[in-house]
């Protein structure tokens, strides 16, 4: 398996913010879930593994990763979401904006390993009608091999 690290760990670096709590409700806010994305090649497929959160801040890195695969002529893409614990419309928009182009080139984007919370977000917008969602990466790879 060839591994290519594209991007990792968004920087927190919050320099200015204020939180107003009523007396008795003070607490420190921790910002968890660093973002990471890793692309690998397996059996002729591009595997893009997402980790942490994909929101308006991190979605551009996801977009770059998919764009890189398409530009390299790799149009059979599995997005592994096993370690993804949050996605907003910015992330969903990345899937939405590339799927037609990839399918025109004879490929597909298949999504696997969604945790229930993230799967719910996809389903609110009816993405299950547009994208194939598989339980895990082996199932997604096998699905590609069936076609």
């Amino acid at each position, binding site marked *: 398996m060839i591994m290519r690290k594209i991007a990792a760990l*968004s*920087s*927190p*670096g*919050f*320099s*200015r*913010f*204020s*939180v*107003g*709590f*009523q007396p008795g*409700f003070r*607490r420190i*806010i*921790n*910002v*968890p*879930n660093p973002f990471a994305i890793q692309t690998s090649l397996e059996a002729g497929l591009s595997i893009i593994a997402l980790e942490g*959160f994909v*929101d*308006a*801040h991190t979605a551009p890195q996801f*977009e770059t990763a998919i764009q890189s695969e398409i530009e390299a002529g790799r149009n059979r893409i599995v997005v592994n979401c096993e370690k993804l614990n*949050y996605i*907003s*419309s*910015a992330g*969903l*928009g*990345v899937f*939405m*904006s*590339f*799927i*037609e*182009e990839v399918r025109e080139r004879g490929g597909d984007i298949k999504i696997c390993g969604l945790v229930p*919370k993230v799967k*719910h*977000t996809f389903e*609110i*917008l*009816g*993405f299950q009608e*547009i994208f194939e969602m598989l339980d895990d990466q082996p199932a997604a790879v096998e699905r590609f091999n069936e076609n």
Partner: protein
Amino acid sequence: MSSIERKFTLQVPSSTENLALIREFVTCVGGQAGLDESDVANLELAVDEACANVIEHAYGHDTSKDVMVRAVFDSETLRISVIDEGRGFDPEKVNQETVEQLVHERKSGGLGIRLIKTLMDEVSYEIVPGQKNELHMTKRIKK
């Protein structure tokens, strides 16, 4: 009998980098208000979408501006307001294309307002462009 209101505010620079902090804030408040896990997740996503719209569209990524999130809850409802002083726009006038249309046109945007309306029980706006824009979202607390 209505309970005592509790108020929380968060003010951060208008940067997408701060969306994680905003989500953590509303998750904390939603938990304290008594929302169940599913509704906390819905609230987190709705407020993220609202704030991302402000950062990208109202302020055009101008990090010298601030985004304010105000939360007020009692035993029955949690009300969240996202407040900015940027270019206001009427979300009702945004063309609501279907997801299929957006896919066909290879668009990456156009989902935020739809998500907010789906996830929250009530949504309303007060818009004075360049002065003060407020998006109000309400979630009823299940007993």
